[in-house]
């Protein structure tokens, strides 16, 4: 199994270094004449006001929360799906229970208006 991952590993090293090597190479080609105006933050020509750390709404966090829930469900779903052909009807019932529980959580979030983007 590790032989297969050797290919992945080598490819990963190349794929990760390649963008940076080309960036370094392009550095020799491209001009470099910075000035304060050019380097200023681009906010449609306006002077930047205040901190970049604008306060975000908790909404982003709530969507991420529901995402985490389903992401973990996938970790259970995939081995089940792979093994499913070998298993009996009980596997279906158990997974239905599992998914039902998650669906309940989704319904709860829906009813509480979490899924409305404001």
């Amino acid at each position: 199994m590790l032989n297969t991952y050797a290919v992945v590993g080598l490819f990963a090293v190349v794929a990760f270094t390649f963008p940076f090597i080309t960036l370094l190479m392009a550095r020799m080609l491209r001009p470099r004449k910075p000035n304060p105006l050019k380097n200023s933050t681009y906010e449609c020509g306006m002077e930047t006001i205040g901190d970049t750390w604008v306060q975000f709404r908790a909404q982003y966090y709530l969507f991420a929360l529901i995402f985490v829930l389903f992401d973990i469900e996938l970790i259970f779903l995939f081995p089940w799906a792979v093994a499913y052909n070998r298993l009996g009807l009980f596997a279906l019932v158990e997974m239905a229970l599992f998914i039902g529980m998650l669906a309940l959580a989704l319904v709860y979030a829906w009813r509480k208006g979490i899924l409305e983007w404001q």
Partner: protein
Amino acid sequence: MTLLDPRVLGEWWNTFLRSGGLSEGWVIFINAVVVTLILMGFGLTSVLIIIWAERKIAGRVQDRLGPNRVGPYGLLQSVADALKLMTKEDITPERAERITYNLAPGLAVFAVLMLLVVIPFGPGLIAADLNIGVLYVVAMGSFGIMAALMAGWASNNKYALLGGFRTVAQLLSYEIPMVLSMSVPVLFAGTMSLHKLVEMQANFRWFGLIMPTAFLIYLISALAENERTPFDLLEAESEIVAGYHIEYSGLKFAWFFLAFFLNTLLLSAIAVTLFLGGWQGPFVDKVPLLGVLYFFLKTVLIVFVFMWVRATFPRLRIDQMMALAWKVLVPMALALVLLAATAVKLPWPPLARDVFLFFSNIVMLFVALGAIGRHLRQEAERFSGRQKWATSSSTTS
């Protein structure tokens, strides 16, 4: 005819290497190097072609010519653009967090390039046939999400940060229906290896034909994961500045661009692998190399559909986009998984099961469309009601 079988050729190549007296470790290493070079070359050239095709197709749809100056049919336009971006001055905003800022585009490219390793281009033509292929594809998407977050944060720009956050919210939301729909082929095939998944789809028993709704959910989610129209509201090339990559220029911008187009190709390739039988087609068992042709034909078809959609559809609003993911696609995908699981256990002949699945998929699709249509009509009525009220109140006052 076995001459044209990549598997046989691979065996010959390995025996050739071993006959030269190389140890097993070196054989693996040399093969890895060769595979890496081929895949990198393929990835980079295919991007140039896709960018050209996208511009040409968009041009034709909008009754223009598209690029036609550099090279025959403008084919070298992308090369010219790449050279331009390479020699262009590259500005780093002064308050940016430099290391993270420079790391983000590389990570975005990395996340997409890594998918090349698990794509089965033909029978036996897969760089690494991982047992967890399907989940590997999903896991690499996490790195793309991180790249967007890093770019948005490190630019030290309000728009970039906001764009980064919204992009992440979008990618997260559509990842769930996408992966849920990908679990349906896994359920049928009983494996996550992409090569075996294709092998299981012989004789036109393509999972996309049995479960058209799952395939559709995958396509819609792939459009969103790729930030393509109609889900490109965070970038909206023609209207607002850009998303999280607003501060990037020159080659760093080019890397985000490359990641975007390569992602289009690879998401289509994965769609073909999971749902359209990959390299399966007539006579593949006789002439295996035909499989490569079938694979690319199908992939190009899906890529074309993506571009066609881009040239045709208007953008969604952000609330519509999030509602589509969580209120429509996720429940549908969950129901589809359970439906597929139930059907597999039905004591019927395989053909009857497939037909049953196909029709129940269609029914489910129409029920969902009906529900969406009803909701939209209600919303429109409410909106027009408010309009009437607004105009009447303005005339009376």
